[in-house]
């Protein structure tokens, strides 16, 4: 597979995965906020989820931009 095709596939993958993760994050946050029994653990859960998701998203975006620039 040549590099330009791979770049196109990367672009589609990046857009779709970001959209997928974003929508599911909103749905999860809605569930946690509305249906949680223990609200003290809720803050910790949200913090851990947002932290890990942000790190993964930052790394993915950095690599994606690196691919586009190369």
């Amino acid at each position, binding site marked *: 597979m040549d590099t330009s095709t791979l770049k196109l596939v*990367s672009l589609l*993958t990046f857009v779709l995965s970001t959209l997928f993760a974003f929508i599911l994050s909103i749905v999860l946050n809605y569930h946690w906020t509305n249906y949680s029994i223990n609200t003290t653990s809720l803050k910790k859960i949200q913090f851990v989820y947002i932290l890990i998701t942000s790190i993964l998203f930052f790394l993915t975006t950095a*690599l994606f931009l690196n691919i586009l620039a190369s």
Partner: protein
Amino acid sequence: MIQLYGNETIIKTIRRHWFVVAIDILMFLALALVPLFVIMLFSNNIIKGEDTSHYNAFIAFFYLVWLELSWTMFSVAWTTNYYLDVVLLTNRRLLKIEQKGLFARDIAEMRLERIQDIRVDIMGIIPSLLDFGTLKVQTAGEEEQFVIVDVPNPNGIKNSIFEHHDVTPSTTKQSI
């Protein structure tokens, strides 16, 4: 949101045993690591001798996307199978809240004074060692029974239910 009666308090919040969650975590860890093994296999055996350095950025990118999706799916599974699947023991009722996927939720309740029998099933070596199992709560009449699976310390929960069963507000009311 769960609506409690005026004089109702939550006595116990019961979720699945940690072992069941640990199995889920291990499965998702395995899922997250599978592409790494595939990449190692490819780089060592199949394209031996060929320069693949220009593909490294793509491989790393697709692996990160895979990790991101695995993490999101794990969060969904953890939320629906563990965090929002909960049984509440109050001083008046036993509430079983079951999150079925992301868009379906089932809430069943049983008044404590109607409970007639509770069965505890602990099957297998691991549940016996770690003390978790299934609780089957039966009411009077033809109502279906509550089946609560993989609960930690099922005998302790059974005792708690019977303890509060004997002092539920309505029972007290009737005896006066």
